[in-house]
């Protein structure tokens, strides 16, 4: 666990979103952890992948170098700055070893055209924000959801934060790929009320192709989660032409029925949507599914409902989308 100079443990957080209503019951505050061991090709939060603070660039927000240039003037590398410009506007920030990520340019930029992905936050800092909406959690059975990135990558900090929430009588939910050492998971579970995880593919080769890792550890941890009787919601991100075959869906259904004993509160089939393009651009990263054109809404909607019906054959409480109540 990382610790500040003052000895305070901190987490690296990309975003805090209040009034989240689809990741757990009720009205929730969602905390996005930075860093992820997976590289899903359909990832819509690429800023959550690296476990480092990163520069993000929004050229459209740049107000023009002739009017501002605070970024370039603040760069310790002077004229040899990695900040690249074109037509009076910020273009990109080249990743060069000489840039020591001092973030001075981001701190100076008035329009947030250069910004920092990832903020170091301590448990008390996060709890201050979390507690602001306490009344909303109490009214709706809501609470806090830790998401990412991958929560388990910062498992010690996550466990501390969850403990603090539980001490404040706030419902806790962890949304994780469960690609992590089982001990870490179990430690995090100590103060977790609900787990949301994905089954992205039942074929480990395909899983590896799409996410960079096989599915064995994940499935093992899901099984362990069921054994621990931890309330569990499973999601399938349904990506056309990738994992939406009837075969894969049936294999998933069999796993849930036979291995988990249907220990699942809800199975959500989430339609893939092409979002996050802009965020990839800010990180100067290619969007692996950038060229993919999803089918018409009417087509995928029909398919999604068909797959949901198949899941119901296994007596699984399956729903299309995430807007039906979990409990």
């Amino acid at each position, binding site marked *: 666990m990382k610790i500040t100079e003052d000895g305070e443990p901190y987490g690296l957080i990309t975003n805090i979103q209040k009034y989240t209503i689809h990741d757990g019951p009720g009205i929730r505050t969602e905390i996005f952890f930075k860093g992820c061991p997976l590289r899903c090709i359909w990832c819509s939060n690429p800023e959550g992948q690296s476990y480092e603070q990163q520069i993000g660039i929004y050229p459209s927000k740049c107000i023009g170098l002739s009017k501002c240039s605070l970024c370039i003037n603040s760069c310790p590398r002077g004229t040899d700055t990695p900040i690249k410009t074109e037509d009076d506007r910020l273009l990109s920030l080249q990743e060069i070893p000489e840039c020591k990520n001092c973030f001075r340019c981001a701190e100076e930029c008035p329009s947030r055209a250069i910004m920092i992905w990832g903020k170091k936050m301590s448990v008390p800092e996060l709890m201050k924000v979390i507690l602001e909406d306490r009344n909303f959690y109490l009214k709706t059975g809501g609470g806090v959801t830790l998401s990412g990135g991958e929560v388990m990558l910062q498992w010690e900090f996550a466990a501390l934060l969850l403990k603090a929430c539980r001490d404040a009588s706030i419902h806790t939910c962890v949304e994780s790929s469960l690609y992590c050492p089982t001990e870490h998971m179990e430690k995090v579970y100590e103060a977790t009320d609900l787990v949301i995880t994905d089954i992205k593919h039942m074929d480990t080769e395909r899983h590896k192709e799409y996410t960079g890792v096989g599915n064995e550890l994940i499935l093992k941890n899901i099984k362990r989660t069921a054994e621990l009787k931890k309330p569990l919601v499973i999601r399938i991100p349904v990506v056309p032409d990738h994992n939406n075959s009837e075969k894969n869906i049936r294999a998933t259904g069999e796993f849930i029925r036979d291995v988990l004993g249907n220990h699942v509160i809800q199975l959500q089939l989430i339609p893939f949507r092409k979002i996050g393009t802009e965020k990839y651009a800010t990180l100067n990263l290619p969007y692996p599914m950038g060229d993919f054109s999803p089918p018409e809404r009417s087509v995928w909607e029909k398919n999604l409902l068909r797959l949901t019906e198949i899941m119901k054959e296994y007596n699984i409480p399956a729903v299309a989308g995430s807007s039906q*109540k979990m409990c």
Partner: protein
Amino acid sequence: MMESAIKREVKSTEPMAIEPFDKEWGVGVSGLTENTSPFPRINKILKWLKERDHTADHERAVIYTDGYFKKYTPYPQILKCALTLRDVLQNVSINIWPDELIVGEIAAPAKSAPVYPEFSIDWLCDEMVNAPLDQRRNDRYVISEETKKALFEIKDYWKGHTLEEHILSTLTEEELKGSHLEKGVNFFDLYVSAGAGHVCADYDKLLSIGFGGIRKQVEDQIHKVNTSDPDHLTKKEFYDAELIILDGVTSYISRYGHLAADMAEKETNPERKAELLRISSNCLQVAEGPARDFWEAIQLWHIATNMIIIETNGHSVTYGRFDQIFYPYYRRDIEKGTFNREFIQELIEMSFLKIHELCKIRNKTAIVFSSGTFMGGTALDVGGVDKDGNDATNDLSYMVLDAHAHTRIPNPWMGVRLHENSPWEFKVKTFNVIRIGTGEPKIFNDAAMIKALQNYDKPIEDARNYVGIGCVEPCVPGKTYGWHDSSSFNIAKVMQLAINGGRCIGCGSHCPRYSKCAGIGGRLGIDTGNLESFESFDQVMDSFDKQMEYWCNLMISQINKVDLAHQRLKPLPYLSLLIEDCIGKGKDVSAGGALYNHSGPQGVGIGTVADSLAAIKQLVFDEKKVDGKTLLNAIRANWQGHEPLYALVNSDRMHCYGNDDDYADDLARFVTATYCKHVEHRPTPHGGEYMPGVFSVSQNVMAGFYVAATPDGRKAGEPLSDCIGPVHTQMGSHDRNGPTAVAKSVAKLDHSRIGNGLILNWKFSPGAVSGETGRDSLISLMDIYFENNGMQSQFNIVGKEVLTDAQKNPDQYKDLLVRVAGYSAYFIELSEELQSDLIGRTELSFD
């Protein structure tokens, strides 16, 4: 024959119009669906109405002029007004339109506006020549050659005799300098060229005793007047006027009865013939008598309200608590089997169409900023508590909401009253209708509205019976003459004067006022200090307070003159019949006859000023990032050459109102409290007290035109923040923490002082409120906002992409209904400025 038509309805065993409480009509679909009513008649009339042009009609103006200048010149003003109005009611042409079940017009055919020359007529004649009303981009009116000719003929009679000319002649140069005619601190034009309206009649009394019963009340009082009483003559004239008007009223309603009978005679379709006969008997009954069943009651309610419009030329003539007014009739009819629910549902929807056909012509400036309203303020509420504080929701509350889902028109302006014991089913129905995305209904928090009225000395029973007038203004129905909306006060302009030594930002010789201001020390306001020289933020707040005091005083002296002019020139003898206690006091409603009297000017730009003050506090005094002079120069230059500072004040580094951040929210509290302090409880000429409101309707767009750049990162001419909401500028939204933060920030303001009401506009993407999860989260969000004493909320649930596309392709979005401010309107009927302001509001989206 009539009985068979009615029985046909009664026989049906499965009511098709009583929808289940949790029926969903879709999310964000707005009015873009056809034939939404289960009643073919309603769909048919709606189609007919939509295809009909808006027009103007001269008959009222001609009859009124004839009486005023030829027949009744020697009479005292109140009698002159009564006699001319009686002539209008007795002589104006009337129509019964195909298929309608409720009849009555406003002295002009459906979708046609009467003309009110006694208020002002020059602008209309001028626009007919120089800015043809049928060529407007929005709020188009087709005016026939005959009408034009008739209006030109009467125009000269009114020269020097209109209310508008009278008012303008009384205003001093000091009062005029900040007006809408000059520098735009205070927009009090609404009641200069039109009537005050903003009133809700005593429908309970009217329906139960009828106009005949009211006549008896007047006659009883006449006998009580002591001839040696110094007020004897005033009272006698008033009562005489009441009796004259009652003659006109009875004649007017009877004429519809006779017309219906004549039409029935010629009608060949037996079902329609039966309907016409029943319409005839309804009218002949309620011309004098009380309403005996739901159909008679709704007929009387509708036509009585139309006559308020014919007399007053006011908008926001409010229809009251529908479910409370009509429940006794509904219950009796259902129990006795007179009508079934299905037929009553059809009558409710019919009444909505009748309200939708009303309209009022506004001038070319007004329609840029409050476009698409047509009549405006046709408010009607359901739900809430009774006078003892118990839940009063009933079947009709649900049926009224279904009626909107079935008609999806912007009339009436619907309000739902909610309280801690509102039934869950009623909330579900309310939010399912809200999620359709037409912007209707708005919701009120009983606790906050009642508290505000109690703060203005209303007994608890009366406060609990409140109705939201027009947009939202809290009012005790049937007992109040509230002069709600008597002015819009531009707080942002005052803030600028407060940081610039009383001078406008951009003061210079190009300004037509330059030489006049030079005579008063070269400034528009008073010199309360300057951002270049303030040494502490306390001095800034002190300067703002002093400048506010100066301008609020001027506003009040302006409104008082307008108020007095109405008393002198435009007494309202018909309205006085329907407001307690005019008959008891023997006093016209305009002169203080009502039990409760108020004047409610609105403060505009709370968010803009709060964020501006927060920027000054943070950058100049706390962080010392810039000095006062630099910031002042930046806004003088409209941020040109100060782009980094402009980006900074619009960035998330700033404290801004609407983020649950006390730093800025405390300043919003301060701004609101300062406005209230200088306005509340001051006396009005018609015998009541001032009651501040803080909502802009769409005046934030108009007021923004008069305000140079502001320190919150707004550029010159951009709209001010709307109503009580957070700021959004060209650079983006200042509320960044989502809806829970907005709800908490707004609830921090002291709502109990805001007796004239407030508006909070929400904009959600359909995805954020879809499904049961979305619905219930939204309900909970509002529950908590109300528990924190929030007063009101209203919603737009249409995707930004839809609005943007509709702006480009209006023809494909003719029925796209959206929430503007106090009201909903067809998006394509809005001015471009207002459309853009709407698109720019923060869209709360979560997936």
